[in-house]
């Protein structure tokens, strides 16, 4: 009997608190798999966000530090500067990185900090009950845009990868998704690549992951996976946005 798949070694036994069908669970697992495969368990430091990813320290058997809402990239900068031998990544939602943490994320990217950011884009503020985020799509209904997001009133969805691509400090930016098997395998490769960029000191790396949020989108898990393809990827096209050096 051959084991084809079992739980990653750097994950604890704790059960996830995520809702059924949530993309955070897949992303948490993929990070653990990459850390295992790159044998970086003793060297990795994770910076957890305020948001649905906040309990990461319960799930990862790797050193994890909790940051204030939006400050992940700043906390990761501090850790990486005093411990350059460690692999440091921050895990941030779209409300975290693209709203309250705009300054911290943007300037860490601009300074070319040697950190990796795993950016979970689910188009809403998940943990607080599905309010509009900067990444909410036009006409998308949320609790704070009940008539659908209106560009005149509420602006346009923010495309973090495209914005960061204009900064000279960034070396690797890719947008992926976790809504179907092939996309999930690509996401895992992108996370590994971001970590390799950090190891080779090419600059700031970020992987934006389109992630289903069935509870706040008020859809079934399967419908939200389809919605990522049908609606989200039209606004946030998948693919490599920037890579300054092959890693």
């Amino acid at each position: 009997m051959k084991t084809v798949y079992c739980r990653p070694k750097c994950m604890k036994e704790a059960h996830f608190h995520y809702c059924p069908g949530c993309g955070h669970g897949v992303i948490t697992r993929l990070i653990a798999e990459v850390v295992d495969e790159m044998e970086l368990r003793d060297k990795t430091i994770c910076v957890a966000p305020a948001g649905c990813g906040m309990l990461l320290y319960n799930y990862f058997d790797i050193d994890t530090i909790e940051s204030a809402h939006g400050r992940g990239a700043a906390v990761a900068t501090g850790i990486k500067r005093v411990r350059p031998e460690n692999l440091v990544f921050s895990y941030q939602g779209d409300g975290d990185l693209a709203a309250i943490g705009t300054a911290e994320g943007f300037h860490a990217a601009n300074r070319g900090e040697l950190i990796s950011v795993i950016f979970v884009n689910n188009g809403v503020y998940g943990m607080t009950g599905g309010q509009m985020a900067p990444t909410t799509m036009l006409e998308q209904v949320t609790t704070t845009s009940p008539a659908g997001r209106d560009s005149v009133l509420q602006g346009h969805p923010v495309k973090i990868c495209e914005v960061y691509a204009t900064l000279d400090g960034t070396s690797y930016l890719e947008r992926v998704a976790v809504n179907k098997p092939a996309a999930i395998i690509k996401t895992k490769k992108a996370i590994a690549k971001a970590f390799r960029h950090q190891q080779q000191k090419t600059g700031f790396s970020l992987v934006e992951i389109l992630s289903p949020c069935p509870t706040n989108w008020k859809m079934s898990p399967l419908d939200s996976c389809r919605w990522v393809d049908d609606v989200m990827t039209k606004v946030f096209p998948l693919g490599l946005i920037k890579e300054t050096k092959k890693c």
Partner: protein
Amino acid sequence: MKGFIRIDPERCKGCSLCMEYCPGHAISLTNRLNLKGYFVADFEDKKECTGCAVCAVMCPEVAIEVYQIEKTDER
């Protein structure tokens, strides 16, 4: 049967993504509740499983373990 899976019933939240993406349709939702109150998915061992692990790739709860049966294994 070339492979089989084990689903941890206490981790499963019945999201049904494993069922939808299983190429052999070898997983179904049961009417059994777990401690959290979710109806859980279970493997139907009469159906064809190749151990492809697509279910484990999709599972957001890391609740699925996948095995392949080798020729040397006793049945």
